[in-house]
């Protein structure tokens, strides 16, 4: 049995009928076809599925779509400019080799943005703490931390 759901995704109003058991990540990927949000573990461990709900990072594999009713969801697709120019945090990941295969990257970027929203100039230690829930099997994290630091600087207008 489906129930009606309305919410905002990347600034657009969305209405759909969903089964209550639909996970937010499946709603985003399968219903909305926004496949930038990845499923790495499906057990709330890896953070590849991280999106923002009302500005806060959450693991969308561990949340029901109906829990996001009437709230604002932002996915990785929602952060670049309309003309496709990368968000400064995305650009920093590219410039500083913050990714290799890229599977973890959307989640890393969304977690990084959540951190920078509350701490515009985080220390490397804070960055490592904030990315506790995001796993990367490629990079060894070093360049991710460097990228987040640079992305935060770029966002506050310094280069």
């Amino acid at each position, binding site marked *: *049995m489906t*129930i009606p759901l309305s919410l905002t995704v990347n600034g657009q109003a969305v209405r759909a009928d969903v*089964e*209550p*058991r639909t*996970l937010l990540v499946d709603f985003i990927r399968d219903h909305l076809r926004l496949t930038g949000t990845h499923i790495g573990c*499906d*057990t*709330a461990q890896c*953070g590849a599925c*991280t999106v923002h*709900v009302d500005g*806060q*990072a*959450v*693991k969308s594999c*561990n*949340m*029901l779509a*109906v*829990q996001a*009713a009437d709230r604002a969801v932002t996915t990785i697709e929602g952060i670049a400019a309309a003309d496709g120019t990368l968000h400064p945090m995305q650009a920093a990941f590219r410039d500083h080799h913050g990714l290799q295969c890229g599977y973890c990257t959307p989640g890393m970027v969304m*977690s990084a943005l*959540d*951190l920078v929203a509350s701490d515009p100039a985080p220390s490397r230690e804070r960055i490592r703490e*904030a990315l*506790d*829930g*995001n796993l990367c099997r490629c990079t060894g994290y070093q360049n991710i931390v460097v990228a987040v630091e640079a992305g935060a600087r770029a966002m506050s207008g310094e280069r």
Partner: protein
Amino acid sequence: MYAFNYLKAQSVADAKSKVAAATDGKLLAGGQTLIAAMKLRLAAPSDLIDLGGVAELRGVKAGNGELTIGAMTTHADVAGSADVKRRIPALADLAGQIGDRMVRHMGTLGGSIANNDPAADYPAGLVGLGAAVVTDRRTIDADAFFTGMYETALEPGEIITAVRFPVPQRAAYAKFANPASRYALVGVFVAQTSGGVRVAVTGAGPVVFRVSALEAALTKRFVPEAVEGIAIDANGLNADMHAGAEYRAHLITVMTRRAVEVANA
């Protein structure tokens, strides 16, 4: 995950009647434990009653030498609350160490203590501070609330509405986190309260417990050295691939010492 009916509660009274009307209804708080269990089909409720929209269950109130924290207050909100940071910084610190950033944005105080995972952090905070769990029908002392592994004193359908934390003279929480899961391998909450010194341990046993030998030593002298040399019996403690019972027993004294250092700092 098996299908279920989804119902949004408007108030505690509404949640109560919705749970009562369901064949096998379960409350949904942050879902950080329950949704995972449902995905694994370890839980298959007929109805989920979502407390997410119940405003009266959220927030921190200060007064009368205590803090009252609503059951639906998230770990992130407790960690960030100015009142909690000022009056019981140890509790804000504990909440800020739960899981990771994303889990803290969703997970709640009520969900955590209702679940009573043997390695969860809040049980140590509640027992360490001598808190009281307020439900839709009564108030339960923390000492009597956590009854066993994943077991609490809650009756079927009983809803936690808030927890009342008396403000201690000083307190601290020291957690030795499992490096993979971030749950407590051993976590020790130490508090100097009007009712005496309390030492509550999570992660080490099947359920949170107090250690009278440590409490007695710290009552005499509330300094880190006071617990030096106190050996904890490893009998009955948890042993798994992450740590043996003897190692956990050893960590209890070590983490107690560290907590006292922080409390006195």
